[in-house]
C-alpha cells in the first residue's frame, strides 16, 4: 500500500486517517475492557466464596510497594499526557523528554513488580505444587517484621480451623493475583515497546501539531493500562486491611 508523507493511500485526508486510528484504538480498548472483565468476574465470584482466604492472601502483599507503584503509574500517565500536549503545541524536544520519563516510570513499576513476585516466590506463594500458606509463618525470612509475621501466623491457623482447604482457596487468590497483575504487566511491556518506537520517532522530530496520531493513540493505550491498575490495587492489596 503506497503512502505519501504521513498519509496512507487508502485515506483521503490526514484528518480522516487520524479519526480512523483513534476510533480503532478506542474500539481495541473496548475489547480489552471485556478481556479483563472476564477475570474480574472470576475474581468476584471466588472472593465472595472464600473471603477469609482472600483476606489472608491480600494481607501478605506489601502495601507500601503497591501504593508506591500506584503513584508511579499515575505519574507516568501524567507525563504521557504531557507528551501528547507537547506534540500538539509543537514543542518537539519536550515530546522526547516526556516520553522518556514515561518509559522510565513504567520501568520502575515493572521493577517493583518483579521484586514483589520474587518475594512471593521465596514465601512459597506461587500457585502449583510447592504452594503453602503455612510455609512463610514457619520459615521467617531475614528482614521480616516479627509483629506482622505473628499476625499472619495467627490468621492462617485460625483460618485453617474454619476451612481445611485454606491452601486451595488461598491458591485461588494467588492464581488470580498473578493472573491479573501478570496480564497487566504484559500490557505494560507492550506499552514500553510502543514507547521506545515513539521515542525513536520523536528524535527525528516527526511529531508535530499537524501529525501526532501515534503519540495520541499510544497515550490512550497507556492511560487504559493505568485504569486497570487503579482497579487492581484496591481489589488485590486492600482486602481486610483493618484487621
Amino acid at each position: 500500500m503506497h503512502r505519501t508523507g504521513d498519509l496512507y493511500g487508502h485515506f483521503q485526508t490526514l484528518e480522516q486517517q487520524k479519526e480512523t486510528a483513534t476510533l480503532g484504538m478506542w474500539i481495541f480498548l473496548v475489547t480489552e475492557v471485556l478481556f479483563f472483565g472476564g477475570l474480574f468476574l472470576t475474581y468476584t465470584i471466588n472472593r465472595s466464596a472464600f473471603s477469609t482466604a482472600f483476606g489472608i492472601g491480600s494481607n501478605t502483599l506489601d502495601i507500601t510497594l503497591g501504593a508506591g507503584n500506584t503513584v508511579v503509574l499515575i505519574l507516568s500517565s501524567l507525563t504521557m499526557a504531557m507528551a501528547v500536549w507537547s506534540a500538539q503545541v509543537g514543542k518537539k524536544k519536550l515530546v522526547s523528554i516526556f516520553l522518556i520519563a514515561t518509559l522510565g516510570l513504567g520501568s520502575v513499576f515493572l521493577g517493583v513488580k518483579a521484586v514483589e513476585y520474587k518475594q512471593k516466590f521465596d514465601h512459597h506463594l506461587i500457585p502449583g505444587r510447592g504452594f503453602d500458606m503455612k510455609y512463610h509463618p514457619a520459615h521467617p525470612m531475614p528482614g521480616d517484621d516479627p509483629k506482622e509475621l505473628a499476625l499472619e501466623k495467627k490468621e492462617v491457623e485460625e483460618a485453617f480451623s474454619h476451612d481445611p482447604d485454606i491452601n486451595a482457596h488461598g491458591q485461588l487468590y494467588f492464581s488470580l493475583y498473578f493472573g491479573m497483575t501478570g496480564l497487566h504487566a504484559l500490557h505494560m511491556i507492550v506499552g514500553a515497546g510502543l514507547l521506545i518506537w515513539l521515542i525513536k520517532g520523536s528524535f527525528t522530530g516527526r511529531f508535530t501539531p499537524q501529525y501526532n496520531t501515534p503519540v495520541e493513540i499510544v497515550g490512550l493505550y497507556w492511560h487504559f493500562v493505568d485504569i486497570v491498575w487503579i482497579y487492581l490495587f484496591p481489589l488485590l492489596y486492600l482486602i481486610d486491611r483493618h484487621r
Partner: protein
Amino acid sequence: MQSQLPIYPEQASNFAPHVDALMVFITGICVFFAAAITIAIVFFFFKYHRKESAAVGIVTHEDSRLEAVWMVVPLILCLAMFGWGAVVYVDYRNTPRDTLDVYVIGKQWMWKAQQPNGLKEINELHVPVGRNIRLILASEDVIHDFFVPAFRVKMDVVPGHYNTMWFRPTKPGRYHFFCSQYCGTNHAIMGGWVTVMEPSDYAAWLSGSSGGSGNPVVAGEKLFAERACVTCHVADGTGRAPSLNGVYGAQVLLADGSTVTADEAYIRESILQPNAKIVAGYQPLMPPYQGQLTEEQIFALTAYIKSVQSQPAPAKGSGIAPTGNK
C-alpha cells in the same frame, strides 16, 4: 403402546402431560407461521416470476403499521409460550414437602442410587407409583445429567453442589434413564432403567432385598459412633455440641442471629465445614471433615441424623429455633 415410529415417548409422570401439551401448543403456533411463510413465498415465487428480462418489480412502500403488527403479534404469542413454560418450570423447581428421597450419585460412568432404607442400586432405580419422588443428586467427578425421557425431567449433576429434582410417576413400567450431559468416554452407556412399581410391590421389593449392613441408618449410626460424633452430640442435649434429635427439617438458630433450615445441604455442610455456620450457644469446636468422608458416608450420616426424629426431646436444646434461644 409404542408404534413402530413413535413421535413422543411414553407419558409416565405428572410432568409428562404438561410438557406434551406445551409441545403441542408451541408446535401449533410454529406450524402455522412456517406454513404461512412457505405458502406466501411459493405463491409469490410463481405468481411474480419475471416474464420479460428487463422488467422491474413494483415498488411497495414501507408501512410502519404493518411492521408494528408483525412485531406485536409474535410478541404476544411469545409471552404466552414464556408464561406457560414458566409455570411448568417453577412447578418442577419447587419440590413438594412430602417426598420420598432417593440419593443418586453420578460418577464416570455409572449411576449409584440409594433407597431410603439404604438399599443400593447401580444403574437401576426403583420407585413406587403415585408418590412424589425427590432425587438428591451428587457427582464424584465431572458434570453429569440425570434424564428420564418418559418423565420429561432432567437435572445436571454438578460436582460440589447438590442439585435436586422431583417427579411423581403415574404409570408402572420400566423406563430408560440416560446421562445427558457429556461426561467423557462412556457417556453413552452411562444409563439404566427406572422401574416404577405399585406401592405394595415396591414395599415388598424393599424389604425383600434390604440387607442390614446396607441400611444407611445402620451404617450411619455405626459411623456416628466410630467417628466419635456421639461424644459431643449427646442425644439429651447435655454435650458440648447440639443434640441432633429432631434437627432435620427444623429451623436452626445460628450464632449470628440468622436461622437456616436443616436440610441435607445444611447437614452436609455442617459435617464438612462445621464452622461455616455455628449454632447459637455453642463453641466452634468440631473439626472439619472435608476430604475425610466419601459421598456415600455423608449420605449414611445424613440418613442416620434424619432417622433420629422420634426420640425424646432434648433437655438443654438443640439449637432448634423455638427452644434453642436461651
